[in-house]
């Protein structure tokens, strides 16, 4: 892993299975990370907005969450001065063209389609972690926005 590895990872995901898989991927990749998970959009925004909270290096954001969905969170984050530079990587089951464009316009920095195989998931996270995203700040070109296997 290059030096640019984020060490403070926040995952907003309501699904326990997906959280488990995400954690196992991090374990198997041996990413030295401080990993925190929140279970819905409200909890996420509450955590991000609390005054003494240290911001994560990267946020992995599920779209389909209860109470406040990923899209609403993304819009709020990009509207808040303190949060707007936080890289947001969207996680979704859907690869629908309209949804992808919508998340790109709202300012997400990556769109990851949840793969059907653990090995693929591992590959994706590995490549995401090793890419120098600072080169693409604040957003990569649209062709590189969606990652799918």
């Amino acid at each position, binding site marked *: 892993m290059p030096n640019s590895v984020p060490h403070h990872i926040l995952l907003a995901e309501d699904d326990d299975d997906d959280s488990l898989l995400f954690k196992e991927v991090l374990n198997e990749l041996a990413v030295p990370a401080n990993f925190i998970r929140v279970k819905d959009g409200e909890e996420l925004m509450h955590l991000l907005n609390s005054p003494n909270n240290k911001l994560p290096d990267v946020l992995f954001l599920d779209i389909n969450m209860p109470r406040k969905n990923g899209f609403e969170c993304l819009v709020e984050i990009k509207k808040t001065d303190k949060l707007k530079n936080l890289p947001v990587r969207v996680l979704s*089951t859907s690869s629908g063209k309209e949804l992808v464009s919508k998340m790109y316009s709202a300012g997400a920095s990556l769109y990851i389609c949840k793969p059907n195989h*653990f090995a693929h998931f591992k590959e994706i996270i590995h490549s995401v972690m090793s890419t120098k995203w600072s080169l693409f700040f604040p957003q990569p070109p649209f062709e590189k926005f969606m990652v799918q296997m």
Partner: protein
Amino acid sequence: MKSLTINNPRHFITEKETSEEYYCEIIHGLPAAIYTCDAEGYIKFYNQAAVNLWGAEPLIGESKWCGSWKIYHPDGTPMPLDECPMAVAIKEGRIVSNQEIIVERPDGSRHNIMPHPQPLRDKNGIITGAVNMLLDITDSKKAENKLRQSENEMRLELETEVDARTKELNSLNEDLKKSNSELSQFAYVASHDLQEPLRKIQTFASRIIQKEKQNLSESGKDYFERMQNAANRMQTLIDDLLTYSRTNTAEKIFELTDLNLLLREVKSELEQNINEKKAIININQLPELNIIPFQFSQLFTNLISNSLKFSRENIPPQIDISADFVHGKNIHIKESDNQKKYCRITVSDNGIGFQSEFNLKIFELFQRLHGKSEYSGTGIGLAICKKIAENHNGFITAYSQPGKGATFNIFIPAEN
């Protein structure tokens, strides 16, 4: 009364017949109301029918113009007696016709009357008075009114009925639209939401194989592989269903598109498959068409993939794609419009083909002509092609014979 003399040359006139008394008798006996006035308008002569019509006897030497008590215009506004049609006929020396009046009798009853006043002149042309025949048209007027009323009622009833039917049809139409859109929404949501649990099954299965393979018996591994295959088939099915329902629900944005460029992209996406099969694809010069580009790519992808899949063993697939323009009246298919010109895009191959009896059935959702182990597939691909052709106000047809390849024709209305 000279003017009333009836001169019939064929009639032998006796002395009695020429007498005034005789004519008076005849006129008195007539059922039509008849009376005369002199040049100043005084009533001179009248018959019994006139008395009946007026409801009173006029006073000779006093009653003028009209023997009625009161008269009115047809709209009910009063008409002065000295302006009645008879007065006009005498004063202006002309026949007055078609001027209906309403006569009110002293007992208050009213009648619709059509007067026929005609001036009388002496041999020098000087007006000596006028004769008037009054026809009571009350009954025919009533009948006419009744007819008009019932006609109006009937029209109103008919209009009400038509309105009600139209409303009913509109509401049925709305219901149909709603249930159609709900159905396609349902298909979309169902297939979309089915993806998630399926993805979990596949992911955890891949996890077990990866971590626990050594703990499984040979038959355990076999079962596991079968389970994974089934899950993968289900994924293909869901993906295809999603594509199908998106074809219905997605926004339809038409763009003038060069089909040659579009097909070049489709070919490069299928490159691996084309190379594996050693397929030859001949593309003739294609026109520019106003189409939904994304959907047309899908259409060509499905048709070419089909041709690659259903190729004959040991014979490299050859796919020919061409286009021409045809008149609707030369197409002879019930969907074609005789007033329109169509662009016909033809995709034909040298594959296994199919029996001609299936040339409509293959476009139905989930229709398959082969077992899963022979040829994989969900039976959705051609249903998508049909939907796409319909989204372009066109249609698609298929012709084939077993072993002789298949030909698909897509007809899209051409502007000018």
